[in-house]
């Protein structure tokens, strides 16, 4: 005995002889160790789970956060120029310049960098406020286009003049335009000719041996003027030389012997489009096609011209001329806000199609007009400081000849000072605006938010402003660098450069979750469209369509799956013989192991095309299958063996047969239904082209009328029948009950039809709401297939919950005279409610997060439409589809993370609510 104890490692009390009782009392230290170890491990596991869930949440948040960080600009250079106050083209003399760059004053060579007159002061001069300044990729230098002086200046940021290029020909320049995206310019002359050309930056690498010692001494990052450009030592120790290249063509006669007042150009697929307004009040449209003769090498210029009156007289000349995108529309804007729109799709005969005002207040004056990227949205800045963004939409009730009207989609407010300069971004919907008080603002047009604001700081001016506001500060020109990373503003005697930090300017909470008015859309909408073929395309990141898609998928799949799964669970736990249950349950559970990609694949490639071919049959089957199953049940009651326990196993095969009969019935009745209810073609009917809404309402109200029939039947008809037939043989009773069922079914259909007809009369056509145009990949297919995906899990959990209800409760209920069905509904189901609820919630969670099925079978069209026959795109499918093509760190990439975060929060909130409700249910049944 003792040796045993020692062997077990217990401490032995030498005096008392150990007995077996004492032995049992001693707890082994190893037990403590294991106990503590287990506790530690479990705590660790739990903690790790919590930490990892939070880790995921934090990671998502970190990825998403930059989207909502405020944009800002930061001044990197400012300089002042004691200029000759030249506001016209008349003087060519450059003035000395006092440059101050980033705080370090450095007097450099001569040269004025200054925008051309904006037309505000220059009387008749119709030259408008197109950005006549351009900035290079690195925001190191800028050109200033001065056609009136027949020159283009290339300046270094800081004001230093680098080069002076000649431009134009020896004629009186009366109009000019530069396209900020391409550098294409056009100059109009007093003799009615127009000359086109192009400004572009050129970069070349120089060998160290080709330059002088001064240049060779350049350190990486440094740069200096060199041969009409800027020489720079790159980080890789190369010498890079940036210059401006000016190309120009010969003038073309656009308005013979007429003075050109305004000019603009565009590039259509069929050549360059030149549009001009001449002093005879005509709008001239010319399409220039150049063909190169392959034999002679000569270029032949062909001109296709047209004109129409532009409706103005000499005192009231228009101030801005803009030709849209591909040259199909021309806008003529007057200072008082009148706008004329010409349809120029036919080049030989432009037509005036719309006339309206673009200003709200009568005293306001239009100060600047430009396009946004894509040359579709017209931006109008006025003297009150407001900037309106106008684009064309196609409403159904347009009164214009071409069915298009101009609307103001966005309005960006300033602080009351006149807008004096506008510059569109070359790559996005950012817009830089300069104001008369010297402020510069950056806006994101679509999301209507002001990104940042800068201001000319007071600089040493030659003559301090004598009273009043600092007139010299009024912004003459602003320009955004090609990468949106810098903004440059020039005033009469100063310039300033800011660095822009705006990685995700289009994203705000409102633009993600609210309606946004995108260019060309008839009204503000929720849109998700992240990519497109064209450069001018604006990505649209509205999450609402995706959230909607997720809800729609969940709704329709739960609509199909949840009742089936719950009924199946109630049936197997309450009615099915245990022997059968043993086989049925694992079979259903095995369905869960079917990979969802297989289900999706089946749905998309097998199920969807079949359903599309047999839509009327499918719809009919929704009614005939339940009918056939019930009918089978009544028939079963008629059989003499029905009351015998021995034959109960026959029920399941009978159900299968009934389902088959129901399907066959549907196949027969389908064409009939299509002919009678859907006017002969269900596809056209769904599309709303033929027939009336009655059939739709009828199908929608079938469940309702069936429910009514069941209620009325069980409450009044059945007891009456039973009373009447109390003492008749079972068989008679069964026959009568069957007759009652048949009559009831007929009544259900009749009532549904009646309801349909009435609703169709008084209400609206159901097409366009819950039913509508049929698309092959649709919510119906997804609902059924995803329903199948969620059935196993709902079924298993709810069957477990139902089986956990104590038998004693069933006995009590049955003993009180309740039928098994009453027992199930009144006692078992309420008792198991918490479990059933969890089952539903788990199913819901699965449906919300399900990816593969919706990815393959939902069509992935991000539209908001409850129509059961249309497609949708869910958050999860969207992430799966777009993640591979999203550039890391881009707005798109982060938006996908925001989608993931939204999904995470949706399931999180759902689960939390579910758990709370479940616990309340649980409390009720707690003491069992």
């Amino acid at each position, binding site marked *: 005995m003792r040796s045993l104890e020692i062997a077990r490692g217990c401490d032995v009390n030498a005096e008392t002889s150990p007995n077996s009782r004492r032995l049992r009392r001693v707890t082994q230290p190893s037990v403590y160790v294991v106990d503590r170890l287990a506790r530690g491990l479990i705590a660790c596991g739990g903690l790790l789970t919590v930490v990892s869930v939070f880790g995921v949440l934090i990671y998502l948040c970190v990825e998403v956060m930059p989207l909502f960080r405020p944009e800002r600009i930061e001044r990197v250079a400012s300089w002042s120029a004691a200029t000759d106050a030249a506001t016209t083209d008349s003087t060519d003399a450059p003035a000395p310049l006092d440059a101050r760059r980033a705080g370090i004053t450095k007097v450099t060579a001569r040269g004025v960098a200054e925008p051309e007159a904006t037309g505000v002061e220059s009387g008749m001069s119709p030259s408008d406020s197109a950005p006549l300044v351009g900035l290079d990729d690195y925001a190191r230098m800028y050109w200033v286009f001065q056609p009136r002086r027949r020159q283009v200046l290339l300046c270094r940021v800081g004001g230093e003049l680098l080069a002076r290029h000649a431009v134009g020909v020896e004629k009186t320049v009366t109009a000019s335009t530069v396209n900020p995206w391409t550098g294409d310019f056009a100059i109009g002359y007093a003799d009615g000719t127009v000359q086109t050309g192009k400004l572009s930056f050129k970069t070349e690498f120089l060998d160290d041996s080709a330059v002088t010692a001064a240049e060779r001494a350049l350190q990486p990052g440094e740069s200096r003027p060199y041969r009409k450009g800027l020489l720079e030592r790159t980080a890789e120790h190369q010498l890079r030389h940036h210059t401006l290249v000016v190309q120009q063509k010969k003038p073309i006669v656009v308005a013979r012997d007429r003075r050109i007042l305004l000019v603009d150009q565009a590039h259509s697929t069929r050549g360059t489009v030149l549009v001009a307004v001449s002093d005879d009040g005509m709008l001239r449209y010319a399409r220039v096609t150049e063909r190169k003769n392959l034999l002679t090498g000569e270029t032949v210029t062909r001109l296709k011209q047209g004109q129409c009156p532009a409706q103005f007289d000499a005192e009231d000349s228009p101030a801005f001329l803009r030709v849209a995108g591909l040259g199909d529309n021309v806008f003529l804007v007057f200072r008082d806000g009148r706008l004329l729109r010409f349809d120029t799709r036919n080049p030989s005969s432009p037509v005036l199609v719309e006339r309206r005002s673009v200003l709200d207040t009568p005293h306001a004056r239009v100060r600047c007009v430009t396009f946004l990227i894509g040359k579709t949205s017209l931006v109008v800045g006025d003297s009150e400081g407001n900037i309106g963004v106008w684009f064309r939409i196609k409403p159904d009730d347009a009164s214009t000849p071409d069915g298009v009207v101009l609307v103001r989609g966005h309005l960006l407010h300033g602080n009351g000072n006149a807008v004096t300069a506008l510059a569109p971004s070359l790559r996005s919907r950012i817009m830089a605006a300069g104001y008369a008080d010297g402020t510069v603002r950056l806006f994101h047009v679509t999301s209507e938010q002001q990104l940042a604001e800068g201001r000319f700081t007071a600089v040493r001016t030659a003559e301090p402003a004598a009273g009043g506001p600092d007139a010299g500060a009024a912004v003459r020109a602003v320009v955004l660098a090609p990468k949106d990373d810098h903004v440059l503003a020039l005033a009469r005697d100063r310039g300033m450069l800011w660095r822009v930090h705006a990685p995700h300017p289009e994203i705000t909470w409102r633009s993600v979750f609210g309606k946004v008015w995108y260019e060309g859309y008839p009204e503000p909408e929720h849109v998700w469209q992240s990519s497109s073929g064209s450069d001018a395309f604006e990505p649209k990141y509205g999450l609402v369509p995706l959230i909607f898609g997720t809800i729609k998928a969940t709704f329709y799949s739960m609509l199909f799956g949840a009742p089936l799964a719950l009924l199946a669970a109630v049936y197997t736990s309450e009615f099915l013989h245990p022997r059968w249950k043993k086989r049925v349950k694992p079979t259903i559970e095995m369905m869960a192991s079917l990979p969802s990609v297989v289900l999706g694949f089946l749905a998309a490639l097998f199920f969807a095309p079949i359903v599309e071919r047999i839509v009327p049959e499918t719809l009919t089957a929704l009614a005939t299958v339940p009918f056939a199953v019930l009918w089978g049940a009544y028939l079963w009651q008629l059989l003499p063996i029905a009351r015998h326990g021995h034959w109960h196993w026959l029920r399941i095969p009978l159900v299968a047969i009934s389902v088959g009969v129901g399907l066959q019935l549907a196949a027969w009745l389908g064409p009939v239904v299509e002919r009678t209810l859907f006017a002969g073609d269900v596809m056209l009917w769904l599309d709303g082209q033929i027939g009336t809404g009655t059939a739709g309402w009828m199908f929608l109200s079938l469940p309702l009328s069936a429910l009514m029939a069941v209620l009325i039947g069980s409450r009044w008809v059945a007891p009456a029948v039973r009373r009447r037939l109390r003492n008749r043989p079972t068989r008679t009773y069964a026959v009568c009950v069957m007759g009652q069922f048949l009559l009831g079914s007929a009544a259900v259909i009749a009532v549904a039809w009646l309801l349909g007809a009435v609703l169709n009369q008084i209400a609206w056509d159901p097409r366009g709401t819950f039913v509508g145009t049929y698309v092959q990949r649709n919510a119906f297919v997804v609902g059924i297939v995803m329903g199948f995906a969620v059935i196993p899990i709902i079924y298993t959990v709810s069957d477990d919950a139902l089986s956990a209800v104590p038998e004693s409760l069933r*006995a*009590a*209920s*049955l003993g009180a005279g309740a039928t098994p069905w009453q027992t199930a509904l009144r006692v078992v189901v309420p008792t198991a409610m918490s479990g059933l609820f969890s089952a539903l919630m788990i199913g819901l969670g699965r449906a919300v997060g399900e990816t593969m099925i919706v990815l393959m079978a939902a069509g992935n069209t991000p539209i908001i439409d409850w129509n059961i026959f249309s497609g949708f795109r869910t958050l999860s499918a969207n992430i799966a589809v777009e993640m591979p093509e999203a550039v890391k760190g881009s707005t798109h990439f982060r938006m996908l993370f925001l989608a993931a975060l939204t999904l995470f929060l949706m399931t999180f909130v759902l689960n939390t609510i579910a758990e709370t409700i479940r616990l309340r249910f649980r409390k*009720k049944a707690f003491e069992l």
Partner: protein
Amino acid sequence: MTQQPPAAVPQSPASTDGDVPQQPAFSQPRPAAAKPPLPDETRPPATSRLHRIALGEPIQAEIHDAVLREDAVLEFDHFSLWYGSKQALFDVSFPVARGKVTALIGPSGCGKSTLLRSINRMNDLIDSVRYEGDIRLNGESILGRQVDVIELRKRMGMVFQKPNPFPMSIFENVVYPLRIDGIRNRRLLKEVCEQSLRGAALWDEVKDRLHESGLGLSGGQQQRLCIARAIAGAPEVLLLDEPCSALDPIATAKIEDLINELRGEYSIVIVTHNMQQASRVSDYTALMYLGRLLEYGPTSDIFTRPHLPETNDYITGRFG
């Protein structure tokens, strides 16, 4: 009639009766009771009858004349019952007196619950059950094909060994038999609820919390709630299957008082394990043994001067 080999059929898991007889705290494991022959030291002097039963021979039940003179509400007529191939009741014939309390006693596993459950055909819920003979309620057979089992059960009220109130309010628990009949008349329901709770001597204790969960009551109260539920349907017969075996002595005393009060209004059949209880509450007592009726008579006679020596042995605790 020969007995099949005992314990050949495993107990079906489909049993819907919460009253499974092997409660280790209260009874010996069943094989001991079912296994012939009896252990030597417990074999009573006159073993012939028990021995013959153990051998599966038919025996004549001893039924006192006093019983036969009573107006019978229920009559068992050569009733036999099988669980699958295992016979649980052997040719049982006896009447149950109207308005009286009849106690069924006997060792565990002798078929008392089975007999009780046959009366409201709860045994039908077990697939393997098969029976012969007849049971008549007020002279009408209750085993026929035409009989609506659901309605039959509505004419009986049943109370089980373990209190089994539903997880609903006390009110809903009591009016459950009316609810399933589709009665929604609030006034009627209230009336029946109060009546039944008063009938079950529970009214004063719960009248202020009718809408609290029935599960919040103590064990004894729960069992009285179950009795209230059983009598809410105005049954003709009340079937009590060891209603006190899960209760403490005070609760037991209350239930016994209640049975005494219900006497006369209802015909009550009570299965009990406790012979003192049988002697305290019942008018007639039936002693069963291995699926057979041994002796049946007025309680006083059974407990003071039984006709059979085996009965005497049983009530004095010499076997069982």
